C-alpha cells in the first residue's frame, strides 16, 4: 500500500506542475473618444514587438517572447475590463473666459461660462481646479504679469463665491507669454485677454 501512496503523491505533484495555468495577458487598444484620433500602443515582450494602431486591436501573451495579435469585440472588453473601466475618473476638462481690455473685468458672456464651470466642478469627487491668467501685448511685460494674476484671482474669487472651497483652486499668471493668437507688441487682441480653467 505504502509505495502506491508515494507514487500517487508524486503523480499529483507532477500533474499540478503541468496543470499550472499559462500566463494569460491581454493588451487592447481602444478607439479614441469621438473627435480624437486613435493612438498606438507598442507591446514588447522578450525582444519581440507588435504595434497596435486600430481600435480594438489586441495582443495576447501566453508566454513571454510570444506576442500574438488579433482583435476583440466591445463585449469581450466589457467582460474582461468592466470594473476597471467603471472606475475611470471623470475626464479632465478645460474652459476659457475672456476679459475687457486692460482690466480684470469679465467680458459679458463670461459670467454664464463661470456658472457652467461651477456645475461641471460639482460633478467631480475631490476636484482640482487650475486657473491660469493671460493678457494681450498692450502694456509692459511686468504690468501684464500682474494683470494676468489679477484676472486669475477674479475667477478664483467668483468660484469661491459660488461655493468652491479655496484650497481646491491653484492660481497662476503667465502674462503675455502664451498668446492664443500671436501678435506684435502693443497689439490689442481680445482672444488673448483670457483665463484658462482646467478641472480634473
Amino acid at each position, binding site marked *: 500500500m505504502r509505495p502506491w501512496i508515494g507514487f500517487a503523491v508524486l503523480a499529483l505533484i507532477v500533474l499540478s506542475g503541468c496543470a499550472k*495555468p499559462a500566463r494569460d495577458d491581454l*493588451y487592447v487598444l481602444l478607439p479614441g473618444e469621438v473627435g480624437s484620433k486613435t*493612438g*498606438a500602443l507598442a507591446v514588447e515582450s522578450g525582444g519581440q514587438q507588435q504595434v497596435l494602431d486600430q481600435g480594438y486591436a489586441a495582443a495576447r501573451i501566453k508566454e513571454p517572447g510570444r506576442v500574438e495579435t488579433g482583435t476583440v469585440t466591445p463585449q469581450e472588453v466589457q467582460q474582461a*475590463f468592466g470594473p476597471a473601466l467603471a472606475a*475611470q475618473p471623470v475626464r479632465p476638462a478645460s474652459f476659457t473666459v475672456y476679459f475687457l481690455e486692460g482690466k480684470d473685468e469679465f467680458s459679458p458672456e463670461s459670467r454664464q461660462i463661470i456658472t457652467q464651470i461651477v456645475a461641471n466642478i460639482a460633478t467631480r469627487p475631490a476636484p482640482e481646479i487650475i486657473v491660469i491668467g493671460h493678457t494681450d501685448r498692450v502694456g509692459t511685460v511686468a504690468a501684464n504679469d500682474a494683470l494676468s494674476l489679477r484676472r486669475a484671482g477674479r475667477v478664483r474669487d467668483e468660484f469661491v463665491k459660488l461655493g468652491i472651497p479655496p484650497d481646491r483652486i491653484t492660481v497662476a499668471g503667465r502674462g503675455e507669454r502664451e498668446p492664443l493668437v500671436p501678435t506684435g507688441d502693443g497689439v490689442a487682441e481680445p482672444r488673448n485677454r483670457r483665463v484658462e480653467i482646467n478641472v480634473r
Partner: protein
Amino acid sequence: MIRRFRWSTLALAVLGVSSLLAFPAASAENAGHIKVAKGAVHIERSGQRLAVAVGDAVNTGDVVTTGADGSVGITLLDNSLLSAGPNSALSIDKFAFDSTTHQGGFEASLRKGTLAVVSGKIAKQSPDAMKVKTPAAVLGVRGTEFLVRTSGPQDQ
C-alpha cells in the same frame, strides 16, 4: 577608551555613508490623486499598508492594490487617467511633469490584475515618455487609450 570611541564613530560614519550610497534618497514625488475608490483599496508606502480615501495623494514609489471587491480610479497631474479592477497591484515607478512645457516622463508597473489607461499631456508632448510594464511586457504609449490584463501562474 577615547581611541575605541573614535573607531566606533568612524565605523558608524562609514556605515552611514555606505547606506546612503546603497539607497539613494528616493524622494517621493506627487503623481496624482485618488478620484474613485470602491471596496478594498490600499496604498503600500514605505513598508506601510494604508487604507485609501477619495482625494488621497498618489506618489512615486506607491503600490496601489485592490481586493477581490475593489476598484480604484486615479487622475495624474498630467491628466492621465489610470483605473484598476479587482485583485490588482499597480506600482507608480516614475513621474515627472512640467505643467508649463508639458515635458516629463511616467512609468508604472501592473504587477497583476486589470488596468484601463487614458494617456495625458506627457504622452502627447513626447511619444514614448510614458511606459507601462507588466511581468511579461513593456508597453510604449503613443497618445492613446488602452487596457491591460496580466496574470501569471503565481496569481492563480
